């Protein structure tokens, strides 16, 4: 992939729920980027100080009055981006699992004309900071999803992504999932002819706190997405 010089602001959305222990670190890390970043935290009804901490450190905070789930948070991000006429957005988890240094690669892929760029933890040899069953599960679901969207995807659960808003404008009214939105957005974008690319990212364990993701719920969601989003 050729190197591209990016001299305009990149809009980064960080969905977060009760991430007061990680959010400052995530924002600080992103601020070290050489890119001109505009940071937004979509606080999904946190009951802790996530919003206050994010706002204090300079991010724009959009707060859900109650907790809905990551999917709803990402829809809020998309709506906001469309209202503000943003060309494309990058999403980064608020739990510190995404290395801000990888942002450059994701943005470069977008600048090269892709509609959806996914940061994949499985494209490079590395020690993965997740339980074995989860790794196998993600691999299996990714294989299943790849068949459904007829494009090779190695990491369907990664939320380190960039989305072209022109395609999101078409699919946003059809998005329904409040929790595991990644699969649904992927399927809907593909159905709209989106060009999808994956770039390798480093897998790092979350800062502190517990993951809110469960493999059983995820499997159920996958089946629901495959059944519900078919043509």
């Amino acid at each position, binding site marked *: 992939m050729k190197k591209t010089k990016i001299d305009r602001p990149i809009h980064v959305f960080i969905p977060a729920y009760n991430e007061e222990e990680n959010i400052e670190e995530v924002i600080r890390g992103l601020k070290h980027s050489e890119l001109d970043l505009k940071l937004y935290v979509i606080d999904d009804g946190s009951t802790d100080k996530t919003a206050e901490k994010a706002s204090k450190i300079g991010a724009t905070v959009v707060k*859900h009055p109650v907790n809905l789930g990551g999917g709803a948070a990402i829809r809020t991000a998309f709506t906001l981006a469309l209202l503000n006429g943003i060309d494309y957005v990058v999403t980064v988890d608020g739990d510190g699992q995404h290395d801000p240094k990888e942002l450059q690669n994701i943005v470069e892929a977008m600048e090269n004309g892709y509609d959806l760029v996914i940061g994949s933890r499985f494209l490079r040899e590395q020690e993965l900071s997740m339980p074995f069953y989860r790794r196998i599960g993600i691999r299996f679901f990714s294989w299943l999803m790849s068949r459904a969207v007829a494009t090779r995807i190695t990491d369907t659960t990664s939320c380190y992504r960039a989305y072209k808003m022109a395609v999101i404008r078409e699919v946003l009214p059809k998005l329904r999932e409040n929790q595991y939105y990644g699969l649904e957005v992927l399927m809907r974008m593909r159905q709209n002819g989106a060009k999808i690319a994956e770039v390798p990212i480093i897998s790092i364990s979350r800062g502190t706190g517990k993951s809110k993701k469960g493999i059983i719920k995820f499997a159920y969601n996958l089946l629901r997405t495959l059944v519900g989003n078919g043509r």
Partner: protein
Amino acid sequence: MIRGIQILGVLIGAYLILQTLIQWKKGNYGVKKTVLWLSLWASVAILFAFPELTTLALPILTMEDAYRTVLVVGLIVAYVLAYETYQQATRTERKLAELVQKIAIHDYFKKARGNPDEKDEDR
């Protein structure tokens, strides 16, 4: 002779009819919904009171005995109701999500009005 289960069934049916009427009086149910629920609970009460009525349906359903028929039909109705409840819950969840998102975006633009760097929402 009337069996204990029949009395229980009739009482439950009567209780549910009463609950439906209360919901209708409170304005929670419209006429259509009230009629639907009243018909269902009245059928339950009548079938418990006169179980021999189910024998009329046995040839149509190709079932052999009345109690089994009641059980199977009851299960089917329960599945339908469970699905209807799921649909309703999904619709409510969707509406709630839309509302919450609207509030969040409205608050964001309200705050941003003081900041000239932020574009205002078209209203």
